[in-house]
């Protein structure tokens, strides 16, 4: 137990050190921007990972919550001039409430009903962003999102925004860790290991899945908020079905049921399109191939898969006379 706590401390300190070094010493604005996007995507993957990796449910419309976060803050702060921080509360609250309404009936049913339900839900929300032009700006997007400021501190510079986003990521990682180490997290992990046994020993699996779906929707909305105030212009294309698939890919590639895996998957899927500039049209093909490869050869995800390979090799070395 004590050893575990120590290990977590080291992990988090290391993480903090990397963030600080990157944030303080990187001069290239483009790199800072990419790292900020990785942070935003990590938030999305973290939330979805709790749902997919632990509760065993897939959401194929998670971009909708990301979009609800972005559009709510855009409309409230951009159109109505409300403080973005109040808008953040409204955006998160809206996403959590909508997740409750969508999740309540679909999670009652067993199997992949949440996947189907969220698929349709994601499409409806995207159509709403596209067609409700007077409010959302329609297909051409929403212009005029104010940058963030908190009292004397403003987040206009890339560096400041980098720290804001990664600060939120660190907080989210700590929250996920706390959940996983708690009574709630144990129940969640027990669903992952065996849903029938979990139900039979007294875990209200429906309620728990619903709660974690709401939590992941909330994190998605926070990511959407950060995205909107970073790029200052949003359009429906960023929150469509492909964005949802990309999030699922991040979680699968990074490794389900792994907090650092979410970070790794988000980093990989954010960097790949930058590297594959020339093949923008084939982006989805590349993602699809990666997804297939991981599912076939490393179904535990890249992080866990490599860890297992290493420990297997080490064990083999040990057993040698």
């Amino acid at each position: 137990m004590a050893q575990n706590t120590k290990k977590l401390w080291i992990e988090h300190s290391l993480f903090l050190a990397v963030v600080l070094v990157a944030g303080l010493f990187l001069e290239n604005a483009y790199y800072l921007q990419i790292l900020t996007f990785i942070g935003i995507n990590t938030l999305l993957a973290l939330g979805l990972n709790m749902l997919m990796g632990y509760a065993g449910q897939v959401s194929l419309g998670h971009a909708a919550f990301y979009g609800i976060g972005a559009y709510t803050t855009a409309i409230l702060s951009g159109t109505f001039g409300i403080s973005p921080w109040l808008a953040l509360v409204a955006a998160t609250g809206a996403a959590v409430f909508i997740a409750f309404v969508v999740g309540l009936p679909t999670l009652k049913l067993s199997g992949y009903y949440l996947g189907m339900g969220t698929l349709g839900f994601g499409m409806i929300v995207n159509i709403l962003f596209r067609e409700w032009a007077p409010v959302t700006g329609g297909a051409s997007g929403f212009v005029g999102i104010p940058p963030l400021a908190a009292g004397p501190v403003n987040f206009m510079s890339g560096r400041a925004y980098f720290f804001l986003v990664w600060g939120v990521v660190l907080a989210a990682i700590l929250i996920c860790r706390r959940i996983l180490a708690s009574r709630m997290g144990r129940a969640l992990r027990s669903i992952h290991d065996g849903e029938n046994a979990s139900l039979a020993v007294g875990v209200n699996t429906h309620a728990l899945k619903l709660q974690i779906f709401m939590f992941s929707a909330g994190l998605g909305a926070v990511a959407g908020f950060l995205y909107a105030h970073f790029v200052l212009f949003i359009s429906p294309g960023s929150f469509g079905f492909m964005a949802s698939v990309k999030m699922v890919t991040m979680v699968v590639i990074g490794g389900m049921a792994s907090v650092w895996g979410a970070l790794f998957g988000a980093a990989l899927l954010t960097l790949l399109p930058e590297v594959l500039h020339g093949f923008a049209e084939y982006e989805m093909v590349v993602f699809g191939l990666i997804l297939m490869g991981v599912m076939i050869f490393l179904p535990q995800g890249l992080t866990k898969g490599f860890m297992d390979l290493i420990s297997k090799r080490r064990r083999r070395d040990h057993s040698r006379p």
Partner: protein
Amino acid sequence: MTIQDHDDSRASGSLLEVRELTKRFGGVVAQDKISFSIEPGIVCGLIGPNGAGKTTLFNMITGIYQPDAGQVLFNGKDTRKMAVHQIVGAGIARTFQHVELFGSMTLLENVLVGMHVRTRAGFWGAVTRLPWVKTEEQEARKKALQLLDFTGLSDWADKPAGDLPVGRQKTAEIARALASDPRLLLLDEPAAGLNAVETEQLGRLIAQVKDRGVTMMLVEHDMSLAMGISDNVIVLDQGKKLAQGTPREIQNNETVMAAYLGQG
């Protein structure tokens, strides 16, 4: 819950009362109007050939299956309207025929999940870690460790449950079930896969659990174990109750001999 229900249970004084319980799967009648009652504090053996409906009966008592007709009264309360976790909360726990521990979690964590219905920290508790949450967690751990001590599994507390030898896994399921402070514990073939020494240890553990005041129902194929530790035995055959009585009565029952013991 009606007043009627209450009066019935008071009158009979039984912990569990099963009334004309019927379950069909398609055209097959898995349970046909089964009725019996169990007094508090006893160990009740449930025997019968494979396919007699023993596990189906457990699944109905624990709320996994809904009966097609009849009712289950636990402590005078009709459990039909209750969800599975509410039934556990009311005081019925179980183990499984095929071990269903949470393999990637440590044994201690398995027992802590068993305590789920007796603890209450939720999402906000986990995030804020308020003093009451910490106290609850510490007390839960203390109790879980005591249970592991009681079942002789202390050495395995921090090992993944999936790494335990099969014999220990069976005991671990009992520890996890006891964590919910049950009044009634349903054991589904606890001796299956155990060797003679382990079976004997299991028999002693069941006697100790009984001393703690936990009523038990036990499905068992090991006849010497079932007859040795049961105060009362129910015989099921093809979804029907064939007989109920003390082990001696059952061993001398001609219908049972013909239908069941005679076969094997």
